[in-house]
């Protein structure tokens, strides 16, 4: 697609429920990132996918968080047994590494998660 698409744009859930957030990256972008932005905070790296390589999961805050990327394209971030501290905007980005070796990320509009 023309941009990075995320859904849902807003999700309200009850504590203890599972949620799935979806990201559809730009066609041809091999790298995909998930970040979390809490109120008044910067962006917290969660997970990174690059091609067929094993994902970098070093930023996932707990084992309740997981992500997968199917067919090297669409990604789903799953949060199990949600807690109130999981409330945040979850941002997805994709990139095509440039010839200079830099990752120029294009971000989606985000999925705002509210856990009651």
């Amino acid at each position: 697609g023309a941009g990075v698409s995320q859904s849902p744009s807003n999700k309200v859930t009850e504590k203890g429920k599972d949620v799935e957030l979806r990201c559809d990256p730009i066609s041809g972008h091999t790298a995909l990132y998930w970040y979390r932005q809490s109120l008044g905070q910067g962006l917290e790296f969660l997970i990174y996918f690059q091609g067929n390589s094993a994902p970098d999961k070093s930023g996932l805050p707990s084992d309740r968080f997981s992500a997968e990327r199917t067919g090297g394209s669409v990604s789903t971030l799953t949060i199990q047994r949600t807690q109130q501290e999981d409330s945040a905007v979850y941002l997805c980005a994709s990139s095509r590494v440039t010839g200079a070796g830099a990752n120029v990320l294009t971000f989606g509009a985000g999925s705002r998660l509210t856990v009651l």
Partner: protein
Amino acid sequence: AQSVTQPDIHITVSEGASLELRCNYSYGATPYLFWYVQSPGQGLQLLLKYFSGDTLVQGIKGFEAEFKRSQSSFNLRKPSVHWSDAAEYFCAGHQTGANNLFFGTGTRLTVIP
């Protein structure tokens, strides 16, 4: 540890005044550096990037940034601010071969008439 730091949480400037947003980096080697802008309810938009070469880089919307190795800084500037520039600005960076783009905590810009 690799990081970028934005020392100013909130800056207020008058419309038409000049602007400088500070960013300091902490990397062993010259990193790739970026500035992103996030308008209310919007995703992050890339303003400009520095890879190598000219230390003064031009971006969109009239913004520029200067890489200063001696000061470990990559400050964002604009000579004349417009009301539409009110937004959150994020500095980010990563090293060659690194997966993770580290973001600063952001600087919120308020523009007053």
